């Protein structure tokens, strides 16, 4: 056994941090290496890991490509597009849930749970499984180097709850989140646009499930986000659905309406539609083929690109509406935009590219793989955050306004959308009744006028105000959004200097206690999973050893005495029997015993090899 020298100082794991794109459809990781960001891919394979989880009846969940293959055969136990449920309540995603083959419930605080094999999983737990897989693949691609430091990207339009859910998922996966950053902003970092002196950039990010558009200005190597807008329910899935509805209508007409509700059919249509959509990216027309042997269904039809464009025109225009809003917020005209960057697999759709080029009057950047560019940018930011790079800076904004519910149920805005973060704001409040010692606050996020139409981030009660006549107390409440986009609130009564206690009860989110419980649970499972793998590894190892012994024994039989042969045969039989055990310790013992029993054979073989190698050499040469 050779010793491999590892330079701990130069390869220090703390100097590494991964950029992870946790996508609706696919996820992947990248790292800063040799002066530039690099996507981490398993040798000879695509870096994209489908964000799909399959739950076999027995054993650990399967994540990625293999899980996706189960989607048609076993749709009830295969989960995809989990990102759409992050930080959401049942009523937010009723439409998506209607087309899913598994049941969903809600916890007391409005957290969605999906039920698979009778077990309930939150979107955070499911996303954690994907993150673990991505992390695992990344560390293997790094040649076994370990790091738990990560930057994870989210759509720019994610609200505080959705960001918090992403953070919780990473905690459950055992990762240390350096930063949650916005996908389009990450993409602009990947393109190395800081090389240009000054300019305005638009990032158009049409992914699997969400659409984001971000306007940035680059000046003196600082990327300053001017505005961001988007649609959390617009993505490649919607383009697939348009095609799928074509098939559904026709199949229902021909084979009766019952068949279109079958989960197997729904999955098959979804995948066939995606396939056709991708083919139409390069071809003027393509086959749309839905084959479900279990239902004896074999449906096909040609689709032309013109037909597809007509079906999806409305979706493209929804994206353009968001572009107009973003430009309006940035107080810019399409003509003043110097560069346009396309991100997300769905930006490959020819009609999307053509419309973007027409709208901005310039050919958009497509040099980098649109599915890898976000992870690459996250790796750049990760490198900055671990102190590896100081020559550029990213100044991001908060995507949604932050406000407080007022007496009449209206919203009083405290921090406007598109404010550069970190940012802070202080608001004054007073009491409306004599001797009032507490005030209730309801924090909301969104642009609507009424609190009920905005997303509720939490409520807090300010207590400890000294008793005074109504309107006398001067309470100042300070809101701070840090560079991570996380909100903190502090309050102070000014006339007495008393600081008030602030507790925020998160809505649609995990409490710290829940995260703790889930973490403990995952550690238990981790031990189970680890044991299961060790059992499999030991069994394989014993199998290989027995096989090798058999082969070698036959070759070296001449040099072995009868008793040794019998001993070896006994040991092999014992090892074969012991390999059936399911206990790690028993297997370990069997393996060690077998190794001891084969020692004489190994020694003999070594002598043979040595004498062969030394044959014909004089002592001096040895």
């Amino acid at each position, binding site marked *: 056994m050779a010793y491999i020298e590892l330079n701990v100082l130069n390869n220090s794991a703390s100097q590494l941090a991964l950029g992870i794109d946790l996508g609706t459809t696919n996820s992947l990781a990248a790292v800063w290496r040799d002066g530039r960001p690099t996507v981490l891919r398993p040798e000879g394979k695509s870096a994209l890991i489908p964000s799909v989880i399959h739950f076999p009846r027995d054993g650990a969940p399967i994540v990625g490509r293999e899980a996706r293959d189960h989607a048609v055969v076993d749709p009830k136990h295969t989960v995809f597009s989990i990102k759409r449920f992050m930080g959401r309540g049942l009523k937010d995603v009723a439409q998506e849930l209607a087309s899913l083959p598994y049941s969903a419930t809600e916890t007391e605080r409005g957290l969605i749970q999906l039920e698979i094999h009778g077990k309930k999983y939150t979107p955070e737990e499911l996303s954690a499984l994907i993150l673990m897989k991505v992390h695992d693949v990344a560390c293997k691609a790094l040649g076994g180097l370990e790091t738990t430091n990560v930057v994870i990207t989210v759509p720019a339009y994610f609200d505080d709850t959705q960001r918090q859910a992403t953070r919780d998922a990473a905690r459950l996966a055992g990762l240390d989140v*350096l*930063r949650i950053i916005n996908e389009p902003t990450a993409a602009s970092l990947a393109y190395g646009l800081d090389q240009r002196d000054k300019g305005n950039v638009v990032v158009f990010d049409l992914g699997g499930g969400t659409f984001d558009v971000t306007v940035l200005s680059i*000046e*003196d*190597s*600082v990327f*300053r986000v001017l505005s961001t807008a988007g649609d959390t329910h617009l993505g490649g899935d919607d383009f697939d659905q348009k095609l799928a509805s074509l098939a559904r209508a026709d199949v229902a007409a021909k084979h009766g309406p019952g068949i279109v509700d079958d989960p197997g059919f729904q999955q098959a249509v979804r995948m066939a539609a995606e396939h056709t959509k991708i083919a139409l990216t390069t071809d003027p027309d393509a086959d749309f083929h839905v084959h479900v042997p279990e239902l004896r269904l074999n449906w096909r039809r040609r689709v032309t690109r013109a037909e597809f464009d007509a079906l999806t025109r*409305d979706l493209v*225009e*929804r994206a*353009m*509406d968001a572009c*107009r*809003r973003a430009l*309006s917020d940035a107080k810019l005209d399409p003509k003043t935009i110097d560069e346009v960057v396309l991100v997300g697999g769905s930006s490959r759709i020819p009609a999307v590219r053509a419309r973007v080029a027409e709208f901005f009057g310039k050919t958009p950047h497509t040099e980098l793989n649109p599915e890898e560019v976000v992870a690459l940018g996250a790796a750049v*930011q990760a490198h*900055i*955050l*671990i*102190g590896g790079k*100081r020559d550029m*800076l*990213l*100044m991001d904004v908060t995507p949604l306004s932050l406000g407080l519910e007022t007496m009449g149920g209206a919203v009083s805005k405290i921090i406007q959308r598109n*404010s*550069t*973060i*970190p*940012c*802070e*704001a202080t608001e004054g409040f007073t009491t409306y009744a004599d001797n009032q010692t507490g005030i209730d606050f309801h924090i909301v996020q969104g642009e609507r006028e009424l609190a009920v139409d905005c997303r509720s981030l939490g409520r807090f009660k300010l207590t400890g105000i000294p008793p005074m006549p109504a309107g006398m107390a001067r309470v100042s409440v300070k809101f*701070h959004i*840090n*560079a991570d986009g996380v909100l903190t609130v502090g309050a102070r009564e000014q006339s007495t200097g008393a600081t008030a206690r602030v507790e925020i009860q998160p809505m649609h989110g995990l409490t710290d206690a829940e995260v703790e419980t889930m973490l403990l649970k995952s550690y238990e499972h981790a031990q189970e999973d680890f044991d299961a793998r060790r059992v499999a590894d030991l069994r394989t190892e014993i199998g290989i050893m027995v096989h090798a012994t058999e082969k070698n024994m036959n070759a070296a039989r001449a040099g072995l005495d009868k008793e040794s042969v019998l001993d070896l045969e006994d040991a092999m039989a014992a090892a074969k029997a012991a390999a059936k055990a399911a206990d790690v310790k028993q297997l370990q013992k069997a393996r060690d015993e077998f190794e001891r029993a084969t020692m004489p054979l190994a020694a003999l073989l070594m002598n043979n090899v040595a004498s062969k190698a030394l044959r014909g050499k004089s002592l001096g040469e040895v």
Partner: protein
Amino acid sequence: MTVCPHCAAELESPAGCPHCKVPLEVPEDASLFDLLGLEHRFAVDVKDLRKRVLKVSRDIHPDFFGTSAPGVRELAEKNSARVNKAFEILSDDAERADWIVRDLGGPDEQEERAMPREFLMEVLDWNEILEEARSRTEALDPRLEPLASELSERRGQAIASIGALLTPMPPRGSPNLVRVRQELNSIRYVDRALAEIEALRLARASVR
């Protein structure tokens, strides 16, 4: 000009040192102008202001202090938030004037809310046009663009007269501050109407 307590270099902004590349403690009562090392006056060169903010941000942004001691990280957070707020206010003529009026003890929008009668009559006229424009669902009302130009021109005039009232900087309690507040109130009406026009433009620009 303040100097860095670590290296004694002269500082453009007291929020951070470009040589030591660290955030520095700034007194709580430092004004927005002080924070960015600017003279106290209404006229601001926005391009110079932006360059200053970008420069100091490259020294103090929390991204560069992820692995630093918690105290340094907190100071980076706090100073960056203050600098960003200062930029937001100082880079906008109306917000800057509002801040100056408050800073000099002038009236806020609740204390000084009387508007000239003829101005309010004009507001009623705009509102009528906006009301009708909202009810037209197909094309953009042809009267909106001329109205937008008129409102922008008005806004420019209001800002110019604010500039005259605040140059040189009036003393605390000056009657000029009341007049600035009145101009700011008229700008609020104008801005609300302009925002409404922009919303209508966006809605009608959609080809859906």
